[in-house]
């Protein structure tokens, strides 16, 4: 049925507009990050050499690290390097930053995606179920559970999961990451408990958003129209309710992904995972500014990219947005 195809040119034009705004955001963000980190107190060279270092040694190291050239040039070098995939060399470890981030990303990205999949898989059915049983025992139970999920900190979940599934049942390891070399399923297995502990609070929030968004939609006139056509409550809910309720849910999913990518430092700590969160933390402690800059830039990039994807998803869900700017 040809008429089902969304208007392709409108969709393309919309995507191009969003893409332009993505590039502008990235440029602005890189400038802000560079400036903020440059004005942060603490000279990496003197930090690396300790407080008793001779001024000429510090100066030599500054030259070696490229800290003595004008700031605008360093900014351009930094941005140019990143575009070529060269993120510079870590001040502390003297290894390429790209490699360090790459290793960590192989842990953090799958973990974030895993957690997000879990949280969506829990939240959608829970939210839809609660909305369809508004005020009834099922709704009250789901809402109670989400209240708990929002209130209890995720590291407590993490510790409980470790206690039950790692220590008592011995289904999983209590911590550490075996690496993807050990095989896909082994990798997934060592990320399972961290992903669940990350996903539970997120799922609780998402389920509440899904429920309230759907309840708003259920009160809309077009739901009554659907019933007047002969759709049952359930049919009306699935065919007219859910898609309309998705916009706020997509917004929250976008925000959650960005948080999961970098904000999982506590969970990484609990499970001894070599993720991005711990890398940032260590780099900040040792004034390894080039690593901090790069990771922050990477996170900003991922947030902006996710927002871009969420924007595209909005337009797929809601035809009204395709024609608007």
């Amino acid at each position, binding site marked *: 049925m040809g*008429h089902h195809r969304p208007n392709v040119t409108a969709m393309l034009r919309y995507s191009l507009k969003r893409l*332009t705004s993505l590039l502008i955001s990235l440029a602005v963000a890189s400038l802000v990050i560079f400036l903020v980190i440059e004005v942060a107190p603490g000279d990496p060279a003197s930090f690396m050499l300790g407080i008793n270092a001779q001024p000429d040694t510090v100066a030599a190291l500054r030259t070696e690290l490229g800290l003595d050239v004008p700031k605008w040039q360093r900014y351009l070098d930094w941005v140019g390097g990143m575009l070529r995939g060269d993120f510079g060399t870590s001040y502390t470890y003297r290894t390429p930053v790209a490699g360090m981030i790459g290793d960590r990303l192989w842990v953090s990205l799958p973990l974030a995606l895993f957690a997000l999949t879990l949280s969506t898989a829990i939240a959608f059915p829970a939210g839809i179920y609660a909305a369809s049983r508004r005020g009834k025992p099922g709704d009250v139970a789901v809402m109670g559970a989400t209240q708990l999920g929002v209130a209890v900190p995720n590291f407590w979940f993490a510790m409980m999961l470790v206690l039950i599934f790692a220590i008592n049942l011995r289904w999983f390891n209590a911590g550490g990451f075996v690496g993807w070399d050990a095989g896909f399923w082994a990798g997934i297995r060592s990320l399972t408990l961290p992903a669940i502990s990350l996903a539970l609070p997120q799922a609780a929030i998402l389920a509440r958003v899904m429920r309230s968004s759907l309840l708003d939609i259920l009160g809309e006139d077009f739901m009554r129209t659907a019933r*007047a056509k*002969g759709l*049952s409550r359930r049919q009306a809910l699935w065919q007219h309710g859910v898609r309309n309720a998705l916009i706020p849910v997509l917004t929250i999913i976008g925000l959650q992904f960005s948080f999961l990518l970098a904000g999982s430092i506590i969970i990484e700590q609990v499970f001894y995972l070599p993720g991005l969160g711990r890398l940032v933390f260590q780099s900040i402690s040792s004034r390894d500014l080039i690593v901090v800059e790069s990771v922050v830039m990477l996170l900003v990039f991922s947030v902006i990219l996710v927002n871009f994807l969420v924007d595209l998803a909005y337009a797929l869900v809601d035809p009204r947005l395709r*024609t608007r*700017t």
Partner: protein
Amino acid sequence: MSLLSIENLSLSIHRFDILADVSLSVAPGEIVAVTGESGSGKSMTALAVMGLLPDSASTRGRIDLDGTDILKTPEPGMCAIRGQRVGMVFQEPMTALNPVKTIGDQVAETILVHKAMTPAKALDRAREMLDRVGLPADRFPLSRYPHELSGGQRQRVVIAMAIALRPKLLIADEPTTALDVTTQAQILDLLKGLVADYGMGLLMITHDLAVVADMADRIVVMRNGEVVEQGPTADLLVNMQHPYTRMLFAASGHQVSLPPPPAPVPLLQVQNVHRDYRLSRTRLFGDPGYFRAVNDVSFTLNRGERLGLVGESGCGKSTLTRAILGLENIQHGQILLDGQPVFTGHKPNLAVRRKMQVVFQDPFGSFNPRHRVDRLITEPFHLLVSPPTGTARQDAIAEALTAVGLRPQDAQKYIHEFSGGQRQRIAIARALITRPDLILFDEAVSALDVSVRAQILDLMAELCTAYDLTYLFISHDLSVVRTVTDRVLVMQAGQIVEAGETADVFTNPQHPYTQTLIAAAPQLPDLEALQRRQSHV
């Protein structure tokens, strides 16, 4: 043999009685209009027939649809009946369609949900139905989305959905109340045509007696959940038995007599006013387009004169109102009150602003529910240089409330303690309290029931005598404008297309648009002739 017969239907929700012993019937090919004021239970009657009552509703009596007892049919059975044997059209076309599905899918869904045809055939039928309701394929392909259509066009889609399976009964709940008069006339024609073509029964719910008298074969008048009178239209119009029916018709055509306006002295001068809205850019560095909402409008409102402004939605009358109030700057021309501009620099001119007040349509939404009436109606005092205090303030409050027919003691109450008509009286009190030179009534009686509207119109006429009011009365309702104004402006697409004495414009419209408007407005039957006949009996 009737198609739908409702026998002694009683309905209560949480022990509140909504309907009591309602009986009515609809025959195939017959249009039955259920009319009455808000709270009369007319919409609940319609929902009861659809089996779409709230879960907490309990019913007694019988609703027989072509041999099926609706009240005894379980939910799955009702799903099979809705859409197939009875279709429904609702009041608000702007929100009645799912915004994320194409109109083709939504019309075809009625067919598919009943598994009446294959998907391909269902789309063919959807196309056929859209053609039938006046949405031809070249301009309205099945792939259109609701947001690409106007209110009238959307209502056509809703009708196409409701009739896609050719139900024997169509229920229309205020189907044209949200539409402009010209669109209303087209939709009513469409409904009449469908009833004639398909031999459907039409149960039409409407508060508009002019529409009722024009459309219906039979009329059912309801009040407080009861049928007070019903009968064939011609009979009922001639022999109204119940006082409520007579009151309804009298209130619908209510006329007031205004005192003659004084000798013309200009108060408000609107000269060559343009108001442009910037549109969003279509290209990153391209020129944004402009939409001219008000285009070269000029008129003068004299002191003590009552001027009407009529036009359909989107014609620019609200924009013009906002510009007169100094709420928006204009791009060209000037607006003077008593010779002073209403807008200076980048802000409203307060010296002029305090000489104007406004009464809006929604009598509830325009009040803060947490303030008492005395605080609500003294709000305009903040415009004054030295607002009255102490006894003077109390006296002003008492006088304003008395002037609008309320009691001074009402000052201590909250707004939710009042009825819709009383709230609109309070809104008028708020506008009067500073004794403004000019009052703007922006659709001020459009949301009111006819009986309440008649009282408010009487109040306005009284106030004209007592306070020498000067007002601009903005409305889409021609019959009301006709009785409460001396002169009238007709606005179309941002321009004033006709201006003149109200009586002249209505009896002898010059501009084609004015002629269309007046022709499209449903007319009440000649009540005076009826009354003459009754007085002879």
